[in-house]
C-alpha cells in the first residue's frame, strides 16, 4: 500500500475516528452514546455494502440479511453458551456462510446483476416473514426462544476471559467504534491488494476480466462473503446497541435504508456510505421526534432525487468538484504568470523600439 493522496485522506479519517472514540464518552451524555452504538452498527452495515457494491459491483439489495443473521446468531449463541466470546465468532461465521451459500447459487448460476438485486431482496423478505411466524414455544434453538414478532433479548457482550462481567454501554460504544475503524482499514487495504484490483476490474467490465483469465465467479463470491462477514459483525454491535433483535431487522424499510446510505454517500468510496449512514440515522430520528412528515416519504423522495439528479452520490461528486476547482485555480495562476511574463516582454520590446 503506497502513500497516495487517497490513503493520506483515509489515514486522516481513521485518526479522526480514533480521536472521536476517545473523546466522545467524556463529552456526550450516556443516552447519546447508547444511540451512537446503534448508528455505528448501521455504519458498519453501510461499509460492507459500500465494499461489495461500490468496489465489487455486486448489486445486493438484501445486505441487511447478513446483518440480521449476525444479530440473531450472536443472540442465540450467547444465550446458549452463557457468554459472548464464542457467540461473536459464531455470528460472523454464520453471516459469512450464509453469504457464501447464497452467493454460490447466484454467481455460479451467472445470475445478472438486476436479478441478483431482486433475489437478495427476496431472501431478506422471506427471512422476515419466516421469523415473524416463530412465536410459538416450539420454535427455539437450544435455550433461545425465537419469540416471533417480539424477537429475542440479546445478552450483552462480555470480556473474553470473564463471561459473568457484561460490558457497560460506553464499552459497547468503544467496541463498536473499534469494529468500524478496523473494518474500514481492512476494506481500504483490501481494495488495494491484487484481489481488490481484480474485483474493481470485474466491476468495470466482467467479460473483459474473464477473457484476461480471471475466474470472476470466484472473485465475486469471495467479495460477497467478506461483505457478509463484515455485515454480520455489524449485526453483533446492533444487537448490543438495541439490546434485542426482532424480525424487523429484515424488513423492506431497512433494506432500502442500506441502499440509500450508499447511494447518498457515493458508490466507489468507503467513507461515503459510512457518513451517509450516520447522517440519515440522525435525520430519520430527528424526523421521528418532529412527527410532521413520514420517514418513508422523506427517504423515498431522497432516493428518487439522488437517482435522477446526483447519481454518483455526494462524496464522489464533491471530490470531482474539488479537483475541478483546484485544477481551475492552478490553471488561472499559470495563465496569470504567463500573461505577466508576456506583458513584461512586450513592454521591454516597446522600450527597445522607443530607444531606436
Amino acid at each position: 500500500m503506497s502513500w497516495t493522496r487517497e490513503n493520506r485522506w483515509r489515514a486522516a479519517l481513521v485518526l479522526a475516528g480514533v480521536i472521536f472514540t476517545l473523546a466522545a464518552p467524556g463529552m456526550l451524555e450516556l443516552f447519546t452514546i447508547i444511540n451512537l452504538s446503534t448508528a455505528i452498527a448501521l455504519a458498519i452495515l453501510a461499509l460492507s455494502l459500500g465494499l461489495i457494491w461500490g468496489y465489487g459491483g455486486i448489486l445486493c439489495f438484501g445486505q441487511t440479511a447478513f446483518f440480521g443473521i449476525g444479530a440473531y446468531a450472536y443472540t442465540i449463541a450467547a444465550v446458549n453458551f452463557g457468554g459472548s466470546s464464542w457467540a461473536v465468532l459464531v455470528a460472523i461465521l454464520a453471516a459469512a456462510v450464509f453469504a457464501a451459500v447464497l452467493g454460490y447459487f447466484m454467481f455460479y448460476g451467472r445470475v445478472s446483476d438486476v436479478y441478483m438485486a431482486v433475489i437478495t431482496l427476496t431472501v431478506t423478505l422471506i427471512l422476515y416473514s419466516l421469523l415473524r411466524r416463530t412465536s410459538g414455544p416450539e420454535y427455539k434453538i437450544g435455550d433461545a426462544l425465537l419469540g416471533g414478532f417480539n424477537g429475542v433479548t440479546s445478552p450483552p457482550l462480555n470480556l473474553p476471559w470473564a463471561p459473568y462481567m457484561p460490558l457497560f454501554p460506553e464499552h459497547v460504544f468503544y467496541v463498536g467504534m473499534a469494529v468500524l475503524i478496523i473494518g474500514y482499514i481492512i476494506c481500504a487495504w483490501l481494495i488495494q491488494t491484487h484481489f481488490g484490483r481484480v474485483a474493481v476490474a470485474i466491476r468495470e467490465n466482467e467479460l473483459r476480466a474473464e477473457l484476461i483469465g480471471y475466474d470472476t465467479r470466484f472473485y465475486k463470491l469471495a467479495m460477497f462473503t467478506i461483505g457478509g462477514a463484515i455485515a454480520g459483525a455489524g449485526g453483533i454491535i446492533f444487537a448490543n446497541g438495541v439490546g434485542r433483535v426482532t424480525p424487523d431487522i429484515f424488513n423492506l424499510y431497512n433494506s432500502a435504508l442500506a441502499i440509500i446510505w450508499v447511494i447518498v454517500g457515493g458508490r466507489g468510496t468507503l467513507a461515503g456510505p459510512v457518513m451517509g449512514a450516520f447522517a440519515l440515522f440522525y435525520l430519520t430520528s430527528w424526523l421521528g421526534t418532529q412527527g410532521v412528515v413520514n420517514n418513508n416519504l422523506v427517504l423515498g423522495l431522497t432516493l428518487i432525487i439522488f437517482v435522477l439528479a446526483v447519481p454518483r452520490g455526494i462524496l464522489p461528486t464533491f471530490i470531482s468538484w474539488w479537483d475541478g476547482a483546484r485544477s481551475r485555480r492552478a490553471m488561472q495562476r499559470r495563465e496569470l504568470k504567463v500573461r505577466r511574463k508576456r506583458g513584461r516582454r512586450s513592454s521591454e520590446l516597446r522600450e527597445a523600439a522607443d530607444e531606436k
Partner: protein
Amino acid sequence: MDLVIALALQIVYGIASLVLISLGLAIIFGMMRVINLAHGEFLMLGGYTVVISTNQGVNIWFAMLVLAPLVVGLIGVLVERLLIQFLYGRMVDTLLATWGLSLLFVGLVTSIFGAQTATTISPPLGAIQIGDYSSSAYELFLIGVTVVLLLLVYAVLKLTKLGLVARATMQSDDMASALGVSTKRIYMITFGLGAAVSGLAGGLLAPVTGVLPSIGATYIAKAFITVISGGASILAGTTAASVLLGGINGIMAFLTGPTLGEVALLAAAIILIRLLPTGITGRFFRKSL
C-alpha cells in the same frame, strides 16, 4: 376423496393467487425490461381503492373490477411519464427509482390514512361445502378471475393491433419505431396496463388480506420470485412458475405447516434459478408469450 378435492382446491387457489399478484409485474418486466419495485405498492393502492370506495357506498364488485384497475392504471401512466421515461436502458437506476417510489407511496398512504388497517371489508359470497370440508366461494371466484385475466391478456397480445405493435416493440424497439410505431406511447400504455392489472389484483385480494400501507412488502417477495423463475415470457412464464412454486408451497404447507411451505418455495426458487438462470421460459416454451 373430499380431502383430496379440498386440498386440490387449496393448491389451485395458491397457484391462482401467485399468478394474480405476479401478472402485473410480469407484464411490465416482460414488455419493457423494467423491474418495478413499487409493484407491491400498486397492489396496496388497488386494495385501498376498493376498501375506501366500498365504505363510501360504492358497489363492491364495481369497486374491485372497475375502479381499482382504473385508478391504479392512471397512477401507473403518471409514474411512467414523471419518472420511468427518463430511465429507460438504465436498469439499475430504474430499480432504485422505483424503490424510492415504493417508499414514497407507503409514506403518502400512511400520512393520509394512518399506519393501521383502514376499515376492512369482508369477502363477498359465502362458504361452500365439499363433503366434510368447507371452502370459501370467494376463493373459487378468484380462481375463475385469474383464468379469465390470463385469457384476456393473451387475447389482447395476440388478437388486437395494440398487442401486435406491443409485441413488435418488445422484440425490437428500434425496428418498430422505424416502421412508424410510437414506442414511447407503447411503453406508456404497457406500463399503465401492467399497473392496472396490479391494481385489479390488489383490489381482489383486499377482502381476503385486509389493507395496510406496508402490505406491499408481503406480496413483493413472492411476485419477484415467481416472475424471475418464470423468465421473460409473460403468460407462459408466470403460469409455469406459479404452478411449480405454488404447487410445492401448497403440498409442503399441507404436509408440514405454512412456515416450511414458504421455506420450500424459496429453496425451490433458488435451486431453479441456479439451474435455469434465465427462468423456465429461458429454456422451455421459448417461443410462447
